């Protein structure tokens, strides 16, 4: 049957494709477990002779990895909280409240998503410097404390909550803020979870901001950390891959656990756009 044959073709293409797409990750992990000498043999070996964990230990000690991870987690936690808290309030206002300038402000926010962050490189640096925030957590957290994408996602969801519910609450004398906290938030748990996910991922992967706003080793985040690691140990591939794996694995694991949420979030926003 035609369909079955086509499906077979699809499977073959997909498997080839996926091998290709994921080969770099496999190679990353495989190299990280090889003894450094093994890495430089040619033809390269697919698997280590005997896997070792030494590279990870060496990488961990060569640069203050613990500190990098700590910094990243602090910033991530702060930003996630900000995105959720301020995002819910703003999204609620845009979705459920009527006030002058609401529509204008919303579209204004949307348009900022189109501005390349690179344009902000220079003035952003100078503003942060003027505030005296260079090399502090404030510089890493505050500029990104709210997120337009989060507001967009939340607003989309809030719009689907029936107006009748709002009216009923109002009749019962429920104040706005209380309504948000006690009704809207519990109803929105999936979306909020998606927002948290996106925020965490974006912060963990953030590079340009931290690169520009911090310069001392104690304030680095993981992405800047491995970039610097590569500068110092450019050809120590085994240790380099160990460092990269440490930074990439959390993302992969988180993603694998919650991928459905993730993909739904992207799909939803893509459709609305």
């Amino acid at each position, binding site marked *: 049957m035609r369909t079955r044959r086509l499906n077979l073709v699809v499977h073959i293409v997909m498997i080839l494709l996926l091998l290709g797409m994921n080969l770099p990750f496999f190679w990353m992990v495989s190299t990280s477990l090889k003894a450094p000498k093994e890495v430089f*043999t040619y033809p390269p070996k697919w698997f280590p002779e005997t896997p070792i964990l030494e590279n990870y230990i060496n990488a961990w000690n060569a640069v203050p990895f613990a500190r990098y991870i700590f910094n990243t987690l602090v910033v991530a936690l702060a930003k996630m909280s900000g995105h959720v808290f301020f995002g819910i309030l703003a999204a609620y*206002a845009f979705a459920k409240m009527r*006030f002058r300038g609401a529509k204008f402000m919303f579209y204004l926010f949307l348009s900022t998503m189109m*501005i390349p962050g690179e*344009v902000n*490189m220079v003035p952003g640096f100078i503003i942060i410097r003027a505030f005296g925030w260079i090399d502090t957590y404030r510089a890493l957290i505050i500029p990104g404390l709210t997120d337009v994408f989060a507001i967009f996602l939340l607003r989309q969801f809030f719009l689907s909550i029936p107006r009748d519910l709002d009216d009923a609450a109002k009749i019962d004398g429920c104040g706005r803020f209380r309504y948000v906290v006690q009704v809207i938030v519990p109803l929105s748990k999936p979306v909020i979870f998606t927002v948290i996910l996106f925020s965490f991922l974006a912060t963990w992967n953030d590079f340009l901001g931290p690169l520009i706003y911090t310069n001392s080793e104690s304030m680095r985040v993981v992405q800047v950390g*491995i970039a610097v690691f590569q500068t110092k140990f450019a050809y120590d591939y085994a240790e380099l891959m160990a460092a990269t794996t440490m930074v990439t694995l959390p993302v992969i694991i988180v993603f694998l656990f919650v991928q459905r949420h*993730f993909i739904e979030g992207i799909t939803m926003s*893509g459709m609305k756009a």
Partner: protein
Amino acid sequence: MMLKAKTPMTLEDRGTLNRGMSAVAKRQRFIETFTGWLYISPPTILFLVFGVFSLGFSIFLSFNRWSILRPMKFVGLENYAYLLRDPIFWNSLKVTSYFAVVAVPVTIALGMVIAFLLNRDIKARAFYRLMVYLPVVTSMISVGIVWRMLYDPEVGLLNYLLSFVGMPKQNWLGDPKLAMPSLIVVSVWKDLGFNVIIFLAGLQGISRTYYDAAAIDGANILRQFRHITVPLLSPTTFLLFILNTISAFRVFGSVFVMTKGEPLHATNVISYAIYATAFGDLQFGYAAAWSWVLFFIIFILTMLNFRFGERKVHYQ
């Protein structure tokens, strides 16, 4: 009388019909407006500081020469004039355009085909989707570091795999002719999954009856793809074209981690050149002017996309 035809009536409106606004209603309206603005104030404040003020300051900066170490000096349009005479500037435009012109269509075309294949009702679909999307969630930095190793001329995996088809070892990141294509490959590899996901969503909106009717009329898969899928996907394609183009002109991470603009400026894209000018040469005014040119390029490209692209879009 204030009958707002645009939005549906709320409880508040009902109370104002035929009577004009009572004092109570006026007060309620005021509280609503105040609370509304209060709720959107945090993002608004950040927008004002790091958006509006930041961009405005950047314009101001672009008219000055400033290297932080010495006082600012007003130079009017000199930065822009210098920019137009700067071969590195023109090179950055050329190189970034080369990147975009290749990476964007390839990523979109591949994304469309893969999404089309994935759209069938096969069991492993979710798994395939997942694996295709994986490179998207990882950071460009970590991915760039890995690919740099894969591109290693002596011990890299790529040269090893290509040796099976008789290709001699290439210096992927060191050869000026190969450096940019190498970066393009990484970019396509990384962003493909995003396009696939969006296309998959778009494909949901194409009714099966079109395909069934075409199949009855004897059209094979290729024909169906060309005459049904592609036209009906055009809104999605249009959207992705815009997003991908904007993203392509902003390319930075891969350059920073794999080539640093080398060799011989072959990969010295706009964003990286701006970065090097600002934080390497400490020429902040000049870098600001350069940033504005980047901004305008993206702006104009997006406008052009809308202008010409939208005509080709087929809405159902």
